[in-house]
């Protein structure tokens, strides 16, 4: 996961992709006390980070029943630290099977600032690109260009049939 802390520089230099300062981790919600406690723990922990770390977070649940912890901040190191710590907490509480993915958002400066994503799949332990263009359409060409730029410097999903999209990402704040 930490390989992204160098890969994002490559993306910026080679492709003009800038980190937007937004990223998220998502896991399936389960009904029950343990899960509820974990949720509270995560929120307490993230709030306790606030004075030191320059970032904001919010929790959203989507229509698939997945909880998203969305982070927003200026420094990628802070974002990455908070995101991985959250993932670790989910695993420690015994919910590692629920942990699905982490998502990092980029803006393509050379093509009108469109959003492009790197998805980290917790089960495969690797990254793949996702460039949505509409409701259910994606820009495969741009995705492959991303792979060609960083595919060698980080654990990357080479099997394109596993590049599952995440439509309607709740990364942008609703307000």
């Amino acid at each position, binding site marked *: 996961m930490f390989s992204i802390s160098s890969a994002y520089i490559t993306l910026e230099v080679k492709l003009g992709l800038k980190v937007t300062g937004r990223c998220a981790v998502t896991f399936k919600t389960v009904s029950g006390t343990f899960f509820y406690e974990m949720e509270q723990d995560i929120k307490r922990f993230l709030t306790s980070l606030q004075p030191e770390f320059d970032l904001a977070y919010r929790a959203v649940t989507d229509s698939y029943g997945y909880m998203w912890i969305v982070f927003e901040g200026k420094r990628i190191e802070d974002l990455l630290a908070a995101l991985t710590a959250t993932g670790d907490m989910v695993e420690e509480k015994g919910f590692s099977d629920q942990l*699905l993915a982490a998502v990092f958002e980029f803006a393509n400066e050379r093509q009108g600032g469109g959003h492009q994503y790197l998805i980290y799949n917790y089960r495969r332990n690797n990254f793949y690109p996702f460039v949505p263009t509409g409701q259910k359409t994606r820009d495969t060409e741009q995705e492959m260009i991303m792979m060609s*730029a960083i595919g060698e410097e980080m654990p990357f999903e080479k099997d394109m049939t596993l590049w599952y999209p995440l439509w309607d990402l709740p990364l942008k704040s609703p307000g």
Partner: protein
Amino acid sequence: MIIKRLRHEVRVYTKKAPWQKRDNGLTARIIVSFAILTILYLVFLSVLAYVGLGAIPIAVIAGIMILAQWYFSDKIVLWSTGAKIVSREQFPELHDLVERIVARNNLPKPRIAVINTKMPNAFATGKTPKSSIVTVTTGLMDQLETEELEGVIAHELSHIKNRDVLVLTLASLFSTIAWYLMQSSLYGGMYGGYGRRRDGGGGMLLVLLVAIITWFVSFLMIRAISRYREFVADRDGALMTGKPSKLASALLKISGTMKRIPTQDLRQMEGMNAFFIIPALSGSSFANLFSTHPPVDQRVKKLLEMEAAMS
């Protein structure tokens, strides 16, 4: 054996149909046409031998016929694939597109032919750059966007520019000679040689062995050269248009890879944990050794590396 050799000979004449795996029909028709022609030659030559013509006249006639086949090869290819030469009036956009590429790269404009089939495919034929023909199918034009079609046609134009037909013909000369040697020594062995040379059995066997090895090595070499020429044509074609990623996406579309990139949401894949354990697909290197075209993913990878280096 004959079919093997023919297939290889046909490849030399027809010059590549880049996405053969999905369009065997076109290649099959070309192969059958050349096979029928070659069988006709062999029957004709056998008849000549039977009526008692000497070895030298037969060799001369065979030579003339091979030259004729070479000379008419593009006509045979057009005829066997059902490709029709099209005028500017019939396909103005296609003519414009080809002219844009040749004008930018200072190449002679080839003739353009179209095959009416849904299968996406393209190939180049011709003995010299000036007399060459670029053929595309209507399916290719329907499936690709203009810039992708440009990429494919530029790839075909680089085959013409690089004289890949000639390169492969020269490369296959060895193989052809070895094949004839192999055959004649086989016949020699089977019928006890032509008469008196009963003592030469061991020598015959050695010739046979050497011929087989030569043939096999040159067979692999031709395939290696052919794969290399594909990479070169990809690179040169991408340089002509300046957009390697467009050719890459064209290749992915034609090979059907594009369709395999999922649109189903990751969140709907839960309960399919086992699915994620399947190891990534990898091409067998054995199959690689024998095929004339490199796998699409390798070609795409190289094109995207080019794109990354250019940006």
